[in-house]
C-alpha cells in the first residue's frame, strides 16, 4: 500500500478569481477601461468633498471663463485658477458641475444596470429552466422589445411625475422614474442570452448528474447554473451601464428629465449646444466624459468576457 500521508500537493489550489484576474491583466483595453471607470467613479463620489464649490452657485461676475489650459495658446483668454474648467454663461463652475453631473449620470447608470441585470437574469433563468414558463416569458420579452423607450418615458414622466415627486422630492422622484423605466425596458437582451445558455447547460452531464442525486431546482440554479452563466451576464451588465448613461443624457437633452438646474452630463451638453462655436469646451467636457465612460465600460466588458470564459482563459 502506498503511503498517502507523505504526499504533498504540487501547487497550492488557485482560486478561480485569481485566474480571471490573470487573464484580465493580459487585456490592455480592459485594464485601461477598468482603471478609468474606477477613477471616474471615485472622482464623482469623492470629488465634491475635495472641490467644494457649489455647482448651482451663480456668480455673475465670473461668467464665461475659459478652462485654464486656454491660457497656453491664448494669453488674453479669461481664465482663473479658481475655475480650472471655466464657468458657464451664468458663472457656474465647470468642474463642480462636471463632478455633480457625473454623480447623477453614474448613479442612474449603475442603478439602472443593476435593475436590468436582476430582471433579465431572473426571467432568463426561469424561462430556460422551467419549460412550461418558457413560451409565455419569451413572448413577454418580445412584447417588451417592441416598446420604444423614449416615447414610453415621455408618457411615464407625464403620468408618474406628480406622485413620485410628492413622495421622494423632485430629484429623487425623477431618479426613481428614470431608473425604473430604463430598467424595465432594457432587460430583454440579458434575458434572452441567459435563457439560451441555461437551455444548453441544462442538458450537460454535470447537471443531469446533479439532478440524478435529487438536487432541488433552487439549489440547481444557484449552485450549477448561475455560476456558469456569469460571463454573459457580466458582459450585458457593462453594456447596460453604458446604455443607461446614454438614455439619461438623451432625456436631459430633451428637457424632460431632471429639473433644469440639476446638473447631469446630458443636461450640460444640451445647455452648451447654443454656444458651441464660441465655447466648445462646454460641449467637449461632458461629451468626452460620457464617451470615455461608455468606452471604458465596453472595454472592460470585452475583457471580462474573455477572462470569465474558462475555455479562452489561459490561452
Amino acid at each position: 500500500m502506498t503511503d498517502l500521508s507523505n504526499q504533498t500537493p504540487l501547487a497550492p489550489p488557485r482560486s478561480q478569481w485569481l485566474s480571471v484576474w490573470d487573464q484580465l491583466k493580459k487585456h490592455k483595453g480592459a485594464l485601461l477601461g477598468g482603471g478609468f471607470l474606477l477613477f471616474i467613479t471615485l472622482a464623482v463620489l469623492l470629488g465634491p468633498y475635495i472641490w467644494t464649490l457649489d455647482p448651482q452657485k451663480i456668480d455673475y461676475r465670473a461668467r464665461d471663463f475659459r478652462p485654464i489650459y486656454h491660457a497656453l495658446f491664448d494669453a488674453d483668454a479669461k481664465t482663473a485658477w479658481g475655475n480650472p474648467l471655466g464657468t458657464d454663461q451664468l458663472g457656474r463652475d465647470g468642474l463642480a458641475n462636471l463632478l455633480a453631473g457625473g454623480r447623477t449620470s453614474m448613479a442612474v447608470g449603475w442603478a439602472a444596470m443593476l435593475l436590468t441585470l436582476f430582471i433579465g437574469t431572473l426571467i432568463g433563468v426561469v424561462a430556460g429552466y422551467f419549460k412550461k414558463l418558457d413560451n409565455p416569458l419569451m413572448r413577454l420579452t418580445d412584447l417588451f422589445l417592441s416598446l420604444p423607450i423614449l416615447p414610453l418615458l415621455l408618457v411615464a414622466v407625464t403620468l408618474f411625475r406628480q406622485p413620485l415627486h410628492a413622495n421622494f422630492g423632485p430629484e429623487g422622484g425623477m431618479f426613481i422614474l428614470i431608473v425604473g423605466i430604463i430598467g424595465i425596458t432594457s432587460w430583454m437582451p440579458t434575458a434572452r442570452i441567459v435563457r439560451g445558455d441555461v437551455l444548453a447547460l441544462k442538458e450537460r452531464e454535470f447537471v443531469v448528474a446533479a439532478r440524478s442525486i435529487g438536487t432541488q431546482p433552487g439549489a440547481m440554479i444557484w449552485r450549477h447554473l448561475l455560476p456558469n452563466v456569469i460571463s454573459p451576464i457580466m458582459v450585458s451588465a457593462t453594456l447596460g451601464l453604458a446604455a443607461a448613461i446614454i438614455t439619461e443624457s438623451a432625456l436631459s437633452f430633451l428637457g424632460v428629465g431632471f429639473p433644469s438646474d440639476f446638473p447631469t452630463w446630458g443636461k450640460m451638453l444640451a445647455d452648451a449646444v447654443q454656444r458651441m462655436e464660441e465655447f466648445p469646451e462646454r460641449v467637449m467636457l461632458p461629451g468626452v466624459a460620457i464617451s470615455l465612460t461608455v468606452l471604458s465600460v465596453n472595454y472592460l466588458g470585452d475583457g471580462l468576457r474573455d477572462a470569465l470564459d474558462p475555455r479562452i482563459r489561459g490561452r
Partner: protein
Amino acid sequence: MKLKTLLLGAIASTALAPAAFAERGSDGHVNIIYWQAPSILNPYLSSGTKDIESASLVIEPLGRYDQDGALVAYLAEEIPTVENGGVSADLKSITWKLKSGLLWSDGSAVTSADVKFTADYCMDPAGGCAQLAKFEGVDSVEIIDDLTVTVTFGEAKPNPYGPFMGGQSPIIQMAQFENCTGAKAPECTDANFGPIGTGPFVVTDFRPNDVISMVANENYRDASKPAFATLTFKGGGSAMASGRAVLETGEFDYAWNLQLAPDVLAKMSEGGKGKTVAAFGTLVERIEMNMTDTSPDLPEGERGTVMHPHPFLSDVRVRKALSMAIDRELLVEIGYGQAGRATCNLVPAPLIYASDNTDCLIQDIEGAKALLEEAGYTVGSDGVREKDGVRLSMLYQTSTNAVRQDFQALIKQWWQEIGVESELRNINASVFFGGDPGSHDTFQRFYADVEMYANNFDGTDPESYLAQHTCDKAPKPESQWMGENMNRYCDPAYDALVAELGRTGELSKRGEIAKKLNDMLTKESYVVVPLVDRGRVSAHANSLGGVILNTWDSELWNVADWHRIK
C-alpha cells in the same frame, strides 16, 4: 437725342417691368418657420400666438393695426370713427361697412351675416371662446344690409375697436362654422384646421403641431397679390434652430420671435443669409403668481380653483418680497441685451397708458427678508422660511427656452437668499402654450405656484388686455380651463374699474384708469410681477422683401405684400 431718349425709355421700362407686371404667384414659394407649432387655425379656440398668427394668413379681421399702432381697414371700407359717423356720438355703437365684391376663398360672397355670425360664435355662452375679452360689453350685433353691421354696446364704449379688429378677432365664414357653435366648437376638426377665409392664402394641408401647406387665394381682393404662389408654414423646433435656418443656412425665409441670448443672435447673424429685425411693443416677460392652491392632494375639480386659496402666495407681503428680490437690470443684460428693458409695468406702452411705476427696478434683498419676517415667516433649520408648518417652497414653471432657464436659475438663487425654496420645471412650449384642456401642463391650467412667460396685447388700447384679469375670466373646470386670468386674481374693485374704463371716452381719463389698473395688478398686489419689456426680434432672408415687423398685430399682417427681391 431722340435715340438717347428712346434708349433711356427702354432701359427704364425694363427696370420697372417686374414691378409693373407683378402678378399673383409670380415669386414662387416662401417658407416661414415658427418654433411653436400651430395646433389649430381658429383663434377663437386658442390664445396661442402661433395659432393666431398662422391663422392670420387665412382669415382676416375688418381692420388691423399697422407698425405704428394706427388702424388700417382690411375687410372694411374704412375705419369707423366719430368724425366719419361710423361711431355713434354716445359711443354706444359702431357701424362697420364691408368692402363690396369681397369673396371667400371658395368663391361665395362675404356678407354682413358672416360678421354677425363671428360675434355669435365667440359670444356663445356654452363655448369657452379664447378671445371673449375682445367682445367685452357687446350687447348685440345687427345686420343693417348685406354689407353693413352695427355693433351695439351695453354702455358707452370709447374704444369700440374690440370686436373684428386685429389678428385675434378675424371674420369666419358662417356657412362653414354654422354647425360648430357652443360646446360643439372644438369638435369641428375640418373647419378648425382649414378655415375658409379672405386672406391671401388658402390651406391645402394642415398637420397639427407640424406643417401647414398653403397656396395663393384665387379670390383675393387684390388681383396682383400675393406675390407667392405657395407657402409652407413650418412649426416646431426651437428658436435656435429656426434662427439658424434663416440666418445661417437660408432654408427658410422668415423666422418668428427669436428669443435667444444676445451674444448667440449676434453670432448667428454673421451667417450672412438674412437679417434680424426688432421692434418694441407691449410684450412683457413676467412672473405670474397663482392665487389658488394647486396641491395634488386636492381632488381634481377643486384643485387650482378659487375654492382653495394659495397657502402663502395669497399673502401680499410674500408676493412683494419675491418681487423685491429680483434684479431686473441684470436679467435684461443676460437675456436680451438691446432687445429688452427692465420694467415694473404690465402695460409698458403706449405712453398715455404706461404707468410711471419704477419701484421695483432696484433689487432689495434685505428689504425682502424684513418683509417676510414681518409676515411671520421665520427661517427654519434648512434655510427655508416657514410659518405654522407652511414652508415657502414653490414650483416655478415656464416653457423650455434657454433664456428662460437662465432666468429661472438666477431668480431661484435670489429667492433662495431670502429663504424661499423653488423647484424649477420647464415644459415644451407647444404643450405649455398649447391650450389643450386635457393637459395639466398648460399655462392656463397653471398647476404650479409661479410661472413665467411673456404676453402682449394687440393694438394700442390695453382695455381688453387689462380686462383679462377680471374674476369671471379665471380658467376653471367649468370653462374647460379656458380663460386668460391665469392667476385666478379676483378683486371686485378691479372689476368695477375695468367696467369704468369701458365707459370712459376721454383719452387722458382712460390713461389714468389704465395706469391705476396696471398698478393694482403690479405694485399694489404683486399678482403679476413684470420683469422685462421685450422688443420682438424676428429674422428674414435677405431675398425676402416687404417685411414690416409689427408688434401691434400679427407679424404676418402684411404677408400679401411680401415678395422676392431679385
